[in-house]
């Protein structure tokens, strides 16, 4: 059975990557994972994914924001939907998000995210991108 779509997870927590990967693979998506922003970007340039799940705080607190900027600046990648996933809800970190320009983010999710939500979002964004003929 061919995969419904190609999904990239960028998160420095390998356990989280593994769990989401297993879930989405069970729902017939092809899933790749990257442990940091730069690896994620190079994987995207290698093969453009249909959807990216992106962690905000990795090695640096704004690594996710940097990745999202890079995606929007790249003409090849700028139409890839991005879902930001983070466990940061504290107002202390709100200041870290740039407010002077729009972030290339389609949706924010707060960890822990019910696994069904990943499948639902993957289905929605991949279908939007590739409407059935």
């Amino acid at each position, binding site marked *: 059975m061919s995969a419904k779509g190609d999904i990239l997870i960028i998160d*420095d*927590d*390998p*356990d*989280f990557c*593994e*769990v*989401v990967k*297993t*879930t989405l693979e*069970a*729902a017939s998506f092809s899933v790749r994972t990257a*442990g940091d922003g730069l690896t994620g970007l190079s994987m995207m340039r290698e093969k453009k994914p249909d959807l990216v799940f992106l962690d905000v*705080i990795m*090695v640096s607190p704004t690594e996710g924001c940097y990745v999202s900027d890079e995606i929007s600046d790249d003409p090849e990648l700028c139409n890839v939907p991005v879902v930001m996933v983070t*466990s*940061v809800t*504290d107002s*202390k970190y709100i200041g870290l998000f740039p407010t002077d320009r729009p972030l290339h983010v389609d949706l924010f999710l707060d*960890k*822990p*995210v*019910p*696994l*069904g939500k990943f499948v639902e979002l993957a289905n929605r964004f991949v279908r939007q991108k590739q409407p059935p003929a």
Partner: protein
Amino acid sequence: MRDWLPFEAELIARIDWLIRLRWLAVVGTAVTIIAGALVFPGSLALVPLLSVTALIGLYNLQFSLYLRTLKIGPAGAVRLRHTTLFAYVQIILDLLALAALIHFAGGVENPMAIFFVFHVIIASILLQRPVSYLVAGLASLLFAAIGGLEYAQVIPHHPLPMVGREVYREGLYLATSTTVLTVTLFLVAYLATSITGRLRKRDQELLESMQVSRANSEELQKLNEQLSRVDEERTRFMVLVTHELRAPVSTIYSCLELALSGYASPEKAREVLARAQNRATEMLGFITDLLSLTRIREQAVQREQVPVTHLESVLQEVVELMKIEAERKDVFLGVECAPDLAPVRALPDQIKLLWTNLLSNAIKYTDPCGIVQVSLTQDAGQLIGTVRDTGIGIAAEDIPRVFDEFYRASNARLVSPHGTGVGLSIVRRIVEKWEGKVWVESESGLGTKFTFVLPRADV
């Protein structure tokens, strides 16, 4: 006016007021003399009276000019001396001028003698208490001198036209009026100096209480700033702790959800459960570290009650435990202790935690076939412990922050993604608690050397 002595500023302000008052007196006197001359033509010693009045006007002009130079001159003790002298000169000249006016207008018969009261009051306002009595004495003397000299006809008497009987020749009247004036002047001096003295005292108290309250408010502000720094630190700590705890809990939650959901095969479910268990174990370790950190922070121990601890015996204990992990990783763990080491004053549990954190870090971040070398020596005042490894090292930009709570160097994350960043802050807290120092030297990719010193308990 800010640099002026308080008394100096006050004195200058009052002299200014006195000079203005004197202009009023000059005008008032001139008008009275002219009115008197018009009502009783030819009966007043017009020329001497107007001359004295003009003289007062003249010296008042001089005074106002001099005051202006005083005001712009440099503040300080020298100017205060000049200003005080200036006040004396004015009071004496005023006394003499009034005495002259009285002499040329009826002598002891002139009721204006009572105006000496003003000089006494002015002296008590401007200068110190004894000066007021001196002025009262001098005024009484002047009055007595006028009366006496006119009585003895040493100086001429200038009668007042409205006084019918010439009383200046009556000895009893002279004695009585001089006594009454003297008593009045001394009483006024007493009353005026009492009131001004009390006011000055109150001013001084007010000034002192203002200084005290200013000092208090500065102290309060300092304490307040300290408190808000502590509060900020505590909030930062709480935010970091909750973040560090929330991330693994949400991952454990997701692992459990996956295992229960049916998305995963039974084998996969087992694998994610094992991952969840690992994360839970790590979390327990983290919480234990947090507790240690808090305990070191909070534990208040009287220095005399602290036992002496031998660093080398605790080290041997820790090395026995760490050997297993070092052998498993194929890392050589070497220990070198100088002979006859002095003890340190510190809680043995904390020393154990110190060695454990330094050694486990060194082993964790050293690749197989690497070396971890521990050494313990002493000098005249302190014990010196070092833990050197041939591990991944620390990047120069990370070195200033490695002892910060929850800080993890970027390369440390690659080796062990779930470390907590608490170990080295525990190390620093323990060493600082026992009045020692800890520092790190490292080169990325080549290795790291941690050194700590603790004061000897025997010196």
